[in-house]
């Protein structure tokens, strides 16, 4: 991949921001207000006026459209608006990649990637609605009680654990690490609510092989990331965080109905990760800290393997609590608490945490972190993954 045809090092994150994070239904603000607050916080962090924004990218059927945002925020002109096709949070890193691509292409100069999600206002992902007849793909699943996101993806985890002899202890370690990190992060909804191994073991099954603490939260909140060209970023701040790679996609027939994707037991990251590392000119060993989207811990397990952070063979040895916690673990994971314990911000919170690690501003800082990875949406048909780094990582 030639340097002149890639976003690598040519775009930087100049600002990150989020609303207050709430448990589902506890936000005093409507979803659009949460988003405005997140974008204003990101602009303040970047030191720019909101009217400088000229593009928006989002994903997953976000309800807050760019024309309304542009009007509310006083944009001089909306030059670029983009929505990534995917389900779940598979587009969180992809939206940042789309923003970066627009900037490199010259279609926009200051693009905000965002996600706003008030499950209290608009209904829960974890509950499946009515009783009227349904057709299409749903007709092959919902009448059999395969309804919620957890029920949609539990069987993939069953198959991976079975095929490779991986222990559920790996999933437990992923959950415990997230809650451990959240205890140092005042933004986290689970701040002050630690999780013990005993409480994990005693928690109820949601759908085997997922216990309660293997599943993400349901929250109200919004998050935003401001991107500009590397040149303009260096004028704004001394510590721009460069986009080193951003890739999205889905493997062969990942969208085939009712679990008929060709390679079944995958998080959909095998090809995305390969392209990502090639673009970033880095390998898994160069990544100092990993933010891996947790819809369910089983998806994290699969993502980490498919990104090359461990193998099917050594997952039981590598994915332990001690290895996964900052600052001393060999694979610090989800250092804000992530979707499990900070906030289910559909993955954009994980992107923000990756940026904070590179700036040295994490509440669970990995000393000297130069390269961070944020992946989004394991197991959904289209996933995405992002690598960011500081000037030293850019070389």
């Amino acid at each position, binding site marked *: 991949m030639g340097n002149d045809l890639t976003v690598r090092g040519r775009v930087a994150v100049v600002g990150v921001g989020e609303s207050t994070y709430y448990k589902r239904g506890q936000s005093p603000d409507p979803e659009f207000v949460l988003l405005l607050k997140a974008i204003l916080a990101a602009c303040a962090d970047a030191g720019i006026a909101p009217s400088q924004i000229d593009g928006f990218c989002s994903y997953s059927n976000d309800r807050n459209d760019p024309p309304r945002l542009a009007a509310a925020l006083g944009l001089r002109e909306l030059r670029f608006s983009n929505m990534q096709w995917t389900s779940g949070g598979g587009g969180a890193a992809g939206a940042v990649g789309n923003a970066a691509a627009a900037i490199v292409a010259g279609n926009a100069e200051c693009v905000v990637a965002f996600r706003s999600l008030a499950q209290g206002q608009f209904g829960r992902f*974890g*509950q*499946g*609605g*009515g*009783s*009227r*007849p*349904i*057709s*299409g*793909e*749903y*007709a*092959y*699943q*919902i*009448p*059999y*009680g*395969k*309804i*919620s996101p*957890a*029920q949609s993806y*539990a*069987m*993939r985890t*069953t*198959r991976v654990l*079975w095929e490779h002899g991986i222990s559920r202890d790996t999933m437990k370690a992923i959950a415990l690490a997230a809650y451990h990190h959240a205890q140092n992060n005042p933004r986290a909804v689970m701040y002050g609510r630690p999780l013990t191994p005993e409480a994990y073991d005693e928690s*109820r*099954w*949601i*759908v*085997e*092989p997922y216990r309660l603490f293997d599943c993400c939260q349901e929250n109200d909140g919004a998050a935003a990331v401001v991107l500009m060209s590397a040149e303009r970023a260096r004028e704004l701040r001394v510590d721009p965080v460069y986009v080193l790679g951003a890739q999205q996609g889905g493997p062969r*027939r990942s969208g*085939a*109905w*009712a*679990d*008929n994707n060709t390679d*079944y*037991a995958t998080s959909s990251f095998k090809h995305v990760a390969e392209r990502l590392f090639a673009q970033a000119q880095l390998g898994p060993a160069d990544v100092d800290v990993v933010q891996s989207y947790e819809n369910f811990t089983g998806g994290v397990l699969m993502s980490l393997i498919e990104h090359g952070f461990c193998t099917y063979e050594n997952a039981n040895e590598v994915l332990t609590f001690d290895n996964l916690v900052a600052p001393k673990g060999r694979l610090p994971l989800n250092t804000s608490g992530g979707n499990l314990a900070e906030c289910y911000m559909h993955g954009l919170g994980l992107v923000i945490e990756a940026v904070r690690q590179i700036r040295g501003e994490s509440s669970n800082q990995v000393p000297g972190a130069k390269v961070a990875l944020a992946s989004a949406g394991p197991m959904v048909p289209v996933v995405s993954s992002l690598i960011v780094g500081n000037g030293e990582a850019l070389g």
Partner: protein
Amino acid sequence: MTERNHVLPPGLPAPAPMRDGLDAPFWAATRRHELVVQRCNGCGGWQWGPEWNCHHCLGFDIGWTEVEATGVIYSWERPWYPVHRALAEAGPYVVLLVELPHAGGVRMVGNLVGDPLQPFQIGDRVRAVFEDHDDADTPFTLVQWERMG
């Protein structure tokens, strides 16, 4: 089969054929207690879920073939937490992903018939059980699975 022999309680959404007619033959066949799968008349390739063209040769001449209503457990899950009000008192139940090796390895989702805590594992052979819902506003039949011998 009487209502009380259904795997799950009443109240879940009923399956309805797609308005464009794509999968009407499948749901009609289940009413006759036949399992049919899409098969390409051009290249012989199998396909599931249904689509308007064949993903192997991209041709549009695609038909429906009755297959032996047996398969192999490819994966499974056991929901405990009820996510739909109809399931509030249902207790745990098993959802299977069943592979049909004799139909190109296509996979179908259904429930395991019988005790949800019965011993079983990936690789076990299963046979289809056609679960009639004759009392529904528009009668329909689900394809469930029971373990073989």
